[in-house]
């Protein structure tokens, strides 16, 4: 359903994504994990027509997003890492614009909007401008919106960032249910390892633009001899912090942390 072959993206000198290959089957939940700046979001942008790959091949349901953009776009829904709502408009209007852009017929659009807003407990606030919403409510609205046009593939780029445990739980229950009942293929990134372990059928770990391991959560743990996915992740990606520009103090702290870890 989602295919990447030798996918590479360079920005000047920097290889953000370096020869990445994976294949996500229909109905699969695939987690893409990696430290900050590892290339997760860049990969998602290439899969979702926002960025052109430097080289390599991508496919969504057999459609190449670089040549058949609109065919590919019809097939996926996406929840972006950072907000993408129009905060001057109401929740209902944001849903309605989305539905119209995806050519969902009006009555179906209204029915589904109502169902989704109720599901994510935003129905009572449907006529309030989004700028009055809390971070969690905006997140929920984005997720509801991504599901409005019943996509075959759902991209979730750190969808639970900044959500409380209740909402996170609710979100994953819903994603799993959707995957089971409508066989929606899900491609997700997250920093919460327990979430990946809980919902994903298969996991790929990316670091410095390269996939360092791929398999079920069980396989990754076996491969690294770790008890938890979090440990496996740290073993595979090291424990240094990868903020794009670490300063001298950060580097010293990391050194100290590595040294302590070895003891």
């Amino acid at each position, binding site marked *: 359903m989602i295919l990447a072959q030798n996918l590479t993206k360079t920005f000047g000198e920097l290889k953000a994504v370096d020869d990445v290959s994976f294949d996500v089957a229909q109905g699969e939940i695939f987690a893409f994990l990696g430290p900050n700046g590892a290339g997760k979001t860049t990969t998602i942008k290439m899969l979702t027509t*926002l960025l*052109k790959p430097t080289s390599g091949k991508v496919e969504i349901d057999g459609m190449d997003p670089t040549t058949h953009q609109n*065919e590919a*776009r019809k097939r996926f829904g*996406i929840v972006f890492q950072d907000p*993408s709502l129009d905060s*001057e408009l109401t929740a209902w209007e944001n849903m309605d*614009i989305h539905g*119209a852009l*995806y050519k969902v017929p009006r009555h179906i659009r209204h029915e589904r909007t109502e169902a989704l807003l109720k599901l994510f407990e935003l129905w009572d606030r449907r006529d309030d401008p989004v700028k009055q919403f809390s971070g969690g409510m905006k997140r929920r609205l984005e997720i509801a919106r991504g599901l409005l046009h019943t996509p075959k593939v759902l991209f979730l780029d750190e969808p639970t960032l900044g959500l409380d445990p209740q909402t996170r739980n609710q979100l994953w229950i819903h994603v799993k249910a959707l995957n089971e009942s409508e066989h929606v293929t899900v491609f997700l990134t997250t920093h919460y390892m327990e979430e990946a372990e809980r919902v994903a059928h298969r996991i790929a770990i990316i670091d410095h633009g390269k996939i360092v391991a791929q398999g079920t959560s069980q396989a990754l743990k076996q491969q690294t001899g770790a008890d938890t996915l979090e440990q496996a992740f740290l073993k595979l990606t090291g424990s240094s912090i990868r903020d794009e520009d670490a300063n001298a103090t950060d580097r010293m702290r990391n050194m100290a942390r590595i040294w302590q870890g070895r003891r």
Partner: protein
Amino acid sequence: MNAIYILWLRQLKRYVRSRARIVASLGQPLLFLVALGFGFGPIFRRAGQGNYIQFLAPGVIGMTVLFTSVFSGVELIWDRQFGFLKETLVAPVPRILIMIGRTLGGATVAVIQGLIVLVICMLAGFRPGALGGVPASLGFMALIAILFTALGTAVASALDDFQGFQLVMNFLVMPIFFLSGALFPLLGLPKAMSVVASLDPLSYGVDGLRASLIGLAHFGAATDLAVLSVLSAILLGIGGYLFSQIQL
């Protein structure tokens, strides 16, 4: 078609809801009208050119439409920063339609602002020559609006953030306004100035407005119409192309 309509409607809703912006954007034309109109009025009359308010009003309307439409185009940067742009860029709609929807929305807002200023000008003493000229002036406002919204969109497509916005205002919009003949007659200008004015698209817009509102034209309404239409089509093309090339 639906995509164009829904994005047009979005621009309009945003406009109607931002009352502060409406009021703020009317302050400048009002200031020009009052300060220049009444300030230079006596000199203009003594120079034998007649009533300055009559001459100035179409220029101030043109200015309002120019500023509002460039700003609408540049709102693209805003959408890029606050994320809504991504939502439209991954939608299964050809980007040219998204660009057209945005442009028409921005242009409609600019025409409404122009109309409000026309009414204000009439309250300040401006009298259109014939009432039949008002619909024709609407057509010119629409052309100015489309032309400059497309220009704003083209510029904004190439800019990443607001750093460049000040540059656009100072080196593009201000010269376009001041050199357009919105404030002074183009007749009898120094050669260089007259050449520059004839290269300024707004000159034709303001000329068209004057032709329709007070029956006074420098280039002639037909020339104005032709120049504005051709330039609008070209800028829509360029803007559409640059917009379709946006990568995030």
